[in-house]
């Protein structure tokens, strides 16, 4: 997989070389090595393809895989690091920050990145640690034709989504009108995070790593998720974003909570019928329980530069990635992402993320121990979702699992 990807990218880069030559004038890296690790989806591929247009007499390779999170810490701990660039999001940057594996970018920005927007620069304690290039969020997807057929308004709250789903089922239009990424593990934990933050909850006691989710807000969040799961296919605990995307494209759902980055793939003319694509609308994540903010979390994707590499490699890698995220990368990829790049014009595929951000949705917390809580949520909530234990018990289990892990990691005593 890895090797194929590298080969394919190298091949693509060679094919593009002719066209790219003119482009690459501004991107000769000298002798520095560039080795990129990142997640695999359309927008990141576009950025990396463009970064690979740069020329260097050193290494130039990329490994894009959905397993990047499992590789990155070990790969960047090595000295010299196996990758010079790690493409991360606001959760996956945390393990790199925790172990001090990425370098501050301020001096590189001063030298090579004057054109970067201030909003692209992600800083931790005053030092820029990552350069963002796209935003993402999970939000509502709905089928206009089916809502119309059932005589329903577009839902803007989760209560209305539940009512609408029930109405679609009662009218016999669809048995399982709702889907979302509820696979046990990271996805299910993320569903809880979205709902809990939408209800105004906070995960930890202020200023500490003590977890505090076993409360009324937590119970309410779980009950809302349970009501939605009942409108979903009984297999819901096995649905990740590949599965939900396929179900949506097959026209088997009318309401969904999916990633904005999937929007472009769903709206394009591949893998689905005209009926589905022309009636799919992307909207802000709904609010919940009379709250005012969309129940979702905001994410950015950006790149970081490894600490354990030579300054020469760091400079080359930074320049290649800055070249990769120049505004030209959006040509032909307008729908691939909600770009944070200068000159970006929102498209229908970006509507949901943009509306969620405007609605005041909360960014996913960049806390050193947030990942531990996310893992505990993902593992411990499935019993409740299948009706085998109470919400209070599930939340108590999450707290106990988190505290065990956090104690072992030295965050709580």
């Amino acid at each position, binding site marked *: 997989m890895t090797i194929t990807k590298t080969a394919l990218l190298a091949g693509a880069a060679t094919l593009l070389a002719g066209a790219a030559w003119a482009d690459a004038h501004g991107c000769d890296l000298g002798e520095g090595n560039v080795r990129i690790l990142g997640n695999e989806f359309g927008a990141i591929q576009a950025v990396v393809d463009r970064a690979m247009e740069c020329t260097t007499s050193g290494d130039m390779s990329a490994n894009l895989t959905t397993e990047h999170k*499992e590789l990155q810490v070990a790969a960047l701990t090595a000295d010299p690091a196996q990758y010079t660039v790690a493409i991360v999001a606001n959760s996956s940057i945390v393990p790199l*920050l925790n172990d001090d594996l990425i370098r501050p970018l301020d001096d590189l920005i001063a030298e090579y990145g004057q054109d970067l927007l201030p909003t692209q620069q992600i800083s*931790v304690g005053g030092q820029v640690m990552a350069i963002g290039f796209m935003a993402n969020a999970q939000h509502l997807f709905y089928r206009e034709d089916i809502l119309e057929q059932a005589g329903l308004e577009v839902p803007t709250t989760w209560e209305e989504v539940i009512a609408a789903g029930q109405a679609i089922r009662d009218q016999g239009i669809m048995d399982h009108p709702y889907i979302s990424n509820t696979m*046990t593990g990271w996805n299910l934990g993320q569903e809880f995070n979205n709902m809990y933050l939408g209800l105004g909850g906070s995960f930890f006691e202020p200023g500490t790593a003590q977890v505090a989710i076993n409360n009324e807000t937590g119970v309410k969040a779980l009950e809302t998720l349970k009501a939605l799961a009942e409108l979903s296919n009984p*297999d*819901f605990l096995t649905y990740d974003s590949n599965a939900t995307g396929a179900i949506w494209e097959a026209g088997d759902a009318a309401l969904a909570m999916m990633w904005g980055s999937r929007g472009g793939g769903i709206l394009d003319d591949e893998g689905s019928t005209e009926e589905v694509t022309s009636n799919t609308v992307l909207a802000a994540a709904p609010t919940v329980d009379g709250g005012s903010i969309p129940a979702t979390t905001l994410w950015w994707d950006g790149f970081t530069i490894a600490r354990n590499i030579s300054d020469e490699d760091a400079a080359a890698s930074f320049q290649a990635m800055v070249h990769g995220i120049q505004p030209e990368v959006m040509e032909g990829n307008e729908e691939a992402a909600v770009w944070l790049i200068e000159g970006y014009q929102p498209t229908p595929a970006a509507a949901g993320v943009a509306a969620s951000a405007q609605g005041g949705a909360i960014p996913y917390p960049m*806390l050193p121990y947030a990942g531990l809580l*996310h893992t505990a949520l993902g593992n411990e909530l499935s019993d409740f979702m299948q009706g085998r234990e109470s919400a209070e018990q599930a939340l108590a289990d999450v707290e106990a699992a988190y505290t065990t892990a956090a104690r072992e990691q030295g965050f709580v005593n």
Partner: protein
Amino acid sequence: MPHRTFFWFILPSLVAMTLFIFVPIVSVVFQSLYVEHEQVVVVSENCGPFGCTEETTIDQDATRALREAEPLGRFAGLSVYTDRAHLAADEVGAIWAASTGLGDFVSRLMNLPFYRALIFTLSYVAIVTPLTIVLGLAIALGVNGLPKVFKGPTIFVSLLPMIVTPVVGALVLYWMMEQNGILGSALQAITGDPTLSLRASAPLTWITLYIYGVWSSAPFAFIVYYAGLQTVPQEPLEAAMVDGASRWERIRYVVIPHLAPLTVFIALIQLMDNFRVFEPIVSFNAGAVAPSLSYNIYNDLRGEITLFNSAAATSVLTILGVVILLTPVLLRTWRDFTTKGGH
């Protein structure tokens, strides 16, 4: 064989075993006795595309000093073993005090990750091992009775489950069980319940994993037994026939006793393999309802923040589990060995 020759003979494998098995196990035991350093956190202002927030981050200089002082982390003794993610001493005590009966106790125990995994793992071992042995023997006897022309093709087909990569075999079955897959929809039609899902129901998932386990390891038992059947002496069989023994009686009293050492061998291998059941759980996405001890280790190592110490403790407990499980079989083999005087 002179001892000196024997020593030189096994030296290469002894070195490899020490390097790749013994040393890693020692290192795992060490890791399980330590936990990470206390983390020094500071509050800092983090800014990004969505504005600035006050968040905590790790104080790198302070943490580095701690790390250099004690590279292994803090010594924790057996506390990782007794925490909630493993033997859960306190929790089990509380459950025992609160439960109303044995059934209630077990169902509450299933709420703790280690015991949930242990119960599934043991049930998997207890069900899959004997069924594999019985099915393997049955196939071997069946194939052995076939006319020669059919033997080759039948053996090939019987070995297929072992030839197919485990993950691929499990995935094929998993897709067939999907609601619009052939098995999933057949089951819905038979039971008349359109919402029935093999993947959503815990008991059905357990049964599917057992079936997969038997299907994938029966060929191993089959091929071992089939080889053994070629060595069954003809005289006692003919003598039994003269005495009027039926086919079943000949198998029961001549063939099965002859194959007994092979049964011990297969049981040994299968007990070890089944105790480490892992691939089908990943392929079936069954981690939520049917985790095994190996799956728990994998889960600890896969999170965004890797829990090495927790994974190490589960690994040591798994090794202990295998040792306990194999003790009766090994004791029996040792007894047989000593009564026969050894050879």
